[in-house]
């Protein structure tokens, strides 16, 4: 049985015994969580896993008997700025982590997206949720995704066993990399209790160059050129005219904005900016925004501001090769109502559909343009029930994924159906 806690946030009257639906389990420690999971596994009760519950609309709808939240397992366990490594309990608010990092002039290099605005959720995003969803922002193109910063984890598998994987050092190839497997598994493979990740020094300064008035495909070419130069672009997005006005309260110059961020030493950013400006001039007029405005712009891009519209219009997150993004959107436009903008040099396309999600059409086009995947991030309940949120996989790969899932959660109690087709 689970440990009895006196903490008020912990549900000690065990809902699993009563069979109550939608009971909320909020363990305050790993041991308690393990007990709850063991009990659930024995009783065959399915659990909906969450952290701060700010990204819970992600994926297929889960039909569970209870909710298991890590939110009460909070706190930074270890942080040595000189080592650039932090260990935190899964339920630690991202905000708390970012605050303490800021105090030490450090940051999460992968810029985790905050899903609240776009998904219309409330609450506190947790660091466990960040890694469980592999939430990565614009700097992913330079510094890698959340999974690339994740060094070690503790989690509880579907049998209620506490498992440790990875460690706290940057280089570690000891055994199978379960860390990567759990990152981005959306709570379907295990319940994260603790994460250890690398952090990065904050750049001394940043600025963003803006090339104005480019069509999507030309914008993609400009971004490809910039990424091929030795200037270390740390953000490359294309904001078509339809969304441009939403950013920086409309202060970006007229016409579509192709934006490129440079960060680093104060001695070097202006030099690189000059070099990049010279290379971009042939595409169109180049302007720039400095430090704070630049930071603000990328926060808005990260959090998909244009589509934080309190609507239920279907929102797709599409990952394709950078060269395919613009062609994909152009092809889709011929057959469906879609508004879109691009991050990750064009490889991450945010698409808001006017009405129908057009899942089959979109996925066929992705395959035609060289592969990738589309995830339905948001939609009305009816649409969600009819549309597989994650990209369906070829049969052998789907079968393999299912075999892997069974090895971690044999009874299938974690977020059942969330990632399945």
């Amino acid at each position, binding site marked *: 049985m689970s440990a009895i806690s006196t903490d008020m946030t912990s549900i000690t009257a065990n809902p699993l015994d009563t069979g109550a639906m939608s009971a909320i389990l909020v363990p305050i420690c790993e041991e308690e969580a393990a007990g709850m999971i063991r009990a659930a596994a024995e009783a065959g009760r399915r659990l909906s896993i969450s952290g701060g519950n700010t990204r819970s609309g992600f994926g297929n709808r889960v039909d569970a008997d209870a909710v298991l939240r890590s939110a009460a397992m909070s706190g930074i366990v270890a942080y*040595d700025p*000189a080592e*650039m490594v932090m260990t935190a309990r899964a339920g630690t608010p991202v905000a708390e982590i970012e605050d303490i990092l800021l105090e030490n002039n450090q940051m999460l290099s992968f810029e985790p997206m905050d899903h609240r605005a776009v998904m219309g959720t409330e609450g506190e995003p947790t660091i466990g949720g960040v890694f469980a969803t*592999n939430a*990565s922002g614009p700097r*992913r193109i330079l510094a*890698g*995704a959340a999974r690339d910063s994740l060094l070690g984890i503790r989690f509880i*598998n579907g049998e209620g*066993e*506490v*498992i440790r*994987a990875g*460690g706290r*050092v*940057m*280089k*570690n*190839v*000891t*055994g*199978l*990399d*379960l*860390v*990567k*497997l759990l*990152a*981005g*598994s959306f709570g379907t493979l295990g319940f994260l209790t603790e994460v250890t990740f690398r952090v990065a020094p*904050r750049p001394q300064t940043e600025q963003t160059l803006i090339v104005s008035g480019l069509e999507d495909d030309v914008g993609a070419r400009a971004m*490809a050129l910039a990424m*091929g*130069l*030795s200037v270390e672009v740390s953000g490359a997005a294309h904001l078509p005219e339809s969304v441009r006005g939403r950013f920086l309260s409309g202060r970006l110059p007229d016409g579509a904005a192709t934006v490129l961020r440079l960060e*680093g*030493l104060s*001695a*070097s950013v202006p*030099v690189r900016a000059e070099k990049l400006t010279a290379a971009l001039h042939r595409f169109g007029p180049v302007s720039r925004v400095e430090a704070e405005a630049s930071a603000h712009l990328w926060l808005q891009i990260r959090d998909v501001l244009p589509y934080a519209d309190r609507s239920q219009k279907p929102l797709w997150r599409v*990952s*394709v*090769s*950078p*060269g395919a993004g613009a062609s994909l959107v152009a092809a889709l436009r011929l057959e469906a109502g879609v508004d879109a903008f691009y991050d990750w040099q064009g*490889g*991450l396309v945010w698409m808001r559909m006017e009405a129908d999600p057009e899942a089959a059409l979109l996925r066929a086009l992705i395959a035609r343009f060289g*592969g*990738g*995947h589309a995830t339905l991030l948001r939609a009305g309940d009816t649409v969600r029930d009819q549309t597989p949120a994650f*990209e369906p*996989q070829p049969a052998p*790969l789907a079968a*393999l*994924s299912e075999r*892997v899932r*069974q*090895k*971690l959660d044999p009874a299938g109690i974690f977020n059942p159906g969330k*990632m399945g087709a």
Partner: protein
Amino acid sequence: MSEVIAFLKPRAEVLARRSVIIADLADLLPPECLVHEARELVPFETDAFVAYRRLPLAVALPKTTAEVAAVLKYCHRYGIPVVPRGAGTSLCGGAIPQEDAVVIGLSRMTQILEIDTFNRTATVQAGVTNLSISDAVSPEGFFYAPDPSSQLACTIGGNIGMNSGGAHCLKYGVTTNNLLGVKLVLVDGTVIELGGKHLDAGGYDLLGLVCGSEGQLGIVTEATVRLIAKPEGARPVLFGFDTSEGAGACVADVIGSGIIPVAIEFMDKPAIEICEAFAKAGYPLDVEALLIVEVEGSEAEMDAMLALIVEIACRHGVKTVRECQSATEAALIWKGRKSAFGATGRIADYICMDGTVPLSQLPYVLKRTGEIVQGFGLRVANVFHAGDGNMHPLILFNANDPDEAARAEAAGNEILKLCVDAGGCLTGEHGVGIEKRDLMRHQYSKADLHQQMAVRAAFDAQWLMNPSKVFPLDGRPAMGTVSA
């Protein structure tokens, strides 16, 4: 060397069918792609971890994914173990075969399939060497970042198998951070694709799982890797110190100050002497410890960063600072460092450790390493990636003296345990292989290991893929018995 690490007992039913198996394989492969004569199998009995040797049953050298799939399908059908092999440069015995195993060598799959500068990717066959990717994309202004010291010879398939690192990983990450997609042949011959040119794959991160799985989950036949624009310039600088502790503390301070150079490499006096003798790179011979710190970018950037680093080094009593004056000089500095292991062969046999420790523990672990090796009556040379705490003590011994060899192995085990106890891990980039297999219990609990093995079994329920490696032989689900 008297062998301490056991291999799985060969499957008698496989050995008994040897001639049939070879005849069948001959039907699946062109004649030049199958090696089976006793004499010719000998050179495949080991890799760069020469202390252990086993003859394989046969060696297949396929040229296509279809041939790899055909051989795997056949072996799977008849329960024949398979050991994948790239260039055979593993320092942990990852490619050492066993008597009942068919080696599948990827050395004929050396085509560079596509270089896509728009998307900054290269798609290559698994047998392409690490360095030849960078060579191929260099004219376009790009490079492939992970640079294991054996990059001249090691293959991308092997790099994926071991999640290889290298000196420049401090800034650019290791293989897993630079790998976008693979074509993977599963043990039953099914071919699947993971990832592609897009930055994050859908579904579970099986690509991340396969990277570093040491040939236990399948055989990678093609890979798509991320390319990076070459920096405007790069400058390695040599910092000589009177003590190893001073150098170690300097490293921690540089990283802690928020500067991340591309590489920070450490050599102690024995290593400096060995490398200088080979490369004549101009390493200072009058210091106890040497750091090679490389910065990159424009001249202004490099100057700014170096000024900061020099200031920190001065606080730690740096004795000599030498900036290199030309590209040739820089190349020599790296040639010396990257040849360190091989060059050690000029003076002795060695085994190379690969533990990683938290930076704050570097000085302590260095000191203890020296004491441990001395305690076994042996010598040690240290040369490693200091910026990320990935240590490579080279334990020097005489391989023709069985007693010394046994002591070297024992000292190595002690050092690796020390690394784990200091908050680190057994292996930072070389892999577990056969060498560190039985130490896995020191780093992981029974449940941790069991979970990893369960996941492994999802790919290979019969444990046919490189089965003597990575996981301790007992406690495996449904495994064969251990040889004496």
